[in-house]
């Protein structure tokens, strides 16, 4: 682990009178898995949206590899290698899985000419197949993605993100709506993605068992403010975190 890949400093964001994030500062360590927890409505997804450029922030700064990105647009940030998956799973529902994968390649150094480049080079296809096998969808690669089950769509979205070979992957509740048996497999795959492909992960998660297993550092948000940051053990035993979750206000 060599320093922070993403540095969030004093970020505030409000929608009308609702303060969704207030002076939040978080570091995402390079090569690690950082967790983000907090009760519903505590501003986790808003923070994700701010990082990927979905909306402008009111105050603060967000740096990726030392570069200020808080004023860049969504596709520009994505092309830097900072990718997110959605809480409401999003895939290209009328295309088959293989095509979903092929169009998810990185668009980092794409000139005008490559718009009409071939999509059928063996290397790209082999990598797509490898990743589909990795998430267990190899058999279904020619099925229309929208007809897969919700859990399978989540896995496909994850595979699409890996296809892009990002530096950082922001995962918004990767295990929501997935059955408990499959969750173990998913944790395993997330860890392998982190180790084998060297992708830094930043994960929002409600399932405590998952996040305590997965992350090496965890931050907790409540009412838009950063409550605590630390190792899973520290956060788990922090009385403020327990209080926020049990709602003992």
């Amino acid at each position: 682990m060599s320093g922070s890949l993403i540095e969030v400093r004093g970020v505030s964001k409000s929608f009308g009178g609702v303060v969704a994030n207030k002076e939040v500062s978080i570091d995402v360590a390079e090569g690690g898995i950082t967790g983000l927890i907090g009760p519903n409505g505590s501003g986790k997804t808003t923070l994700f949206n701010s990082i990927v450029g979905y909306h402008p922030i009111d105050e603060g700064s967000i740096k990726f590899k030392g570069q200020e990105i808080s004023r860049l647009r969504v596709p520009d940030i994505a092309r830097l290698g900072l990718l997110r998956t959605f809480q409401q799973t999003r895939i290209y529902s009328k295309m088959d899985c293989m095509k979903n994968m092929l169009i998810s390649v990185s668009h980092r150094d794409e000139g005008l000419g490559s718009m009409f480049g071939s999509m059928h080079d063996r290397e790209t296809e082999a990598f797509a197949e490898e990743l589909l096998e990795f998430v267990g969808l190899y058999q279904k690669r020619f099925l229309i993605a929208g007809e897969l089950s919700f859990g399978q769509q989540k896995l496909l979205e994850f595979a699409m993100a890996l296809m892009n070979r990002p530096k950082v992957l922001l995962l918004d509740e990767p295990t929501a709506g997935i059955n408990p048996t499959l969750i173990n497999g998913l944790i395993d795959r997330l860890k392998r993605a982190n180790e084998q492909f060297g992708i830094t992960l930043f994960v929002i998660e409600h399932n405590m068992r998952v996040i305590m297993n997965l992350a090496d550092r965890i931050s907790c948000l409540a009412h838009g403010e950063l409550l605590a940051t630390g190792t899973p053990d520290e956060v788990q035993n922090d009385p403020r975190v327990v209080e926020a979750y049990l709602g003992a206000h």
Partner: protein
Amino acid sequence: MSAQKLDLSLYGVLVAAGILVPLLAPAFTSQMAILWLMVLMAVTWDMTGGQMGYNSLGNIAFFGIGMYASAVVQIGIVYDVAEYTAAFGAIKVDFTVEQYWTGLLLGIGFGGVVATVFALIIGPFMLGLRGPYFAIGTLGLAVAVAELVSGWSYVGGGSGISMPVFPGEAASGSQVFYVLLFVLAILAHVVIRAIYKTRFGLAINAIRDDEDKAEAMGIHTTRYKVTAWMVPAFFMGMAGAVFGNMSGFIEPLEVAFPTATFGIFMVAMALLGGKGTVWGPVLGAILFHIVKEVTWTHLLGWQWVALGAIIIINIVYFQQGILGWAQDRWPSLFGVTVDEKTTRTGQAEAAK
């Protein structure tokens, strides 16, 4: 692959029909010319409307712009355009055969280029609109362009322009325009089909399915969207140039910008055959044209009712169109299959 063979044989059928029908039944030549024009319109519309999901109701603007651009070029290489149009056809310019052909070919090329440039300029603004807003916006665009041309005296305003007369017999003239439209339609389909096989095809499909996701994945969405409008504009512009010459006289409302007829027909044809499929728009155009001509002949007075009924039934009960329906009905014919192998190396998962 068998899909490729099927495509090749379909091209064979189309080319054979395109050559044989006017030879065996010369009376149908002008009907067939219009058919090719409709095929071209439906196929090019489908790139933006079907494959990318941006339902344009204004592609007819490219048609008219191409037509006027070619008229200006064709007259302009011999005569002063403003004087020519100011005389309302009273000036008879005799074009030499050479001047005519140079003008025609230059005009067709120019028509395509001007329409493409127009799409390039207007595209980034229009394509920022989504869903129904884009449809209404483009409809407004077509109407506005038609109105602007009507008020522009340099190109004759509402009273139009008489096009250069074809040197030679009228019959051979209509054969020439027939061949031009036929070649353009086939060329448009071949080019567009080839483009769909590249990254471009996947990217515009991705934009159709979820544009926000496509942006979040880093796809250059604006670049793809504008190009997916420029390609139809190019072919529509050239088709407009040919059609203008074929008509002999052009004016803004009925010939150059027929928003309520061709402008709507191209959408209806693509929907009928199955939008977002490679052959659907061709099939739709052929069926639609046949129904249109048959009702014009045998149900005169009711032809608009019949066409309207087809469009309504199509949109209410049958949105996916003929080929779209076939694809839902027999998915395995279209490559939607479960692979028996569970892994890449091909070992069936026997143990567990």
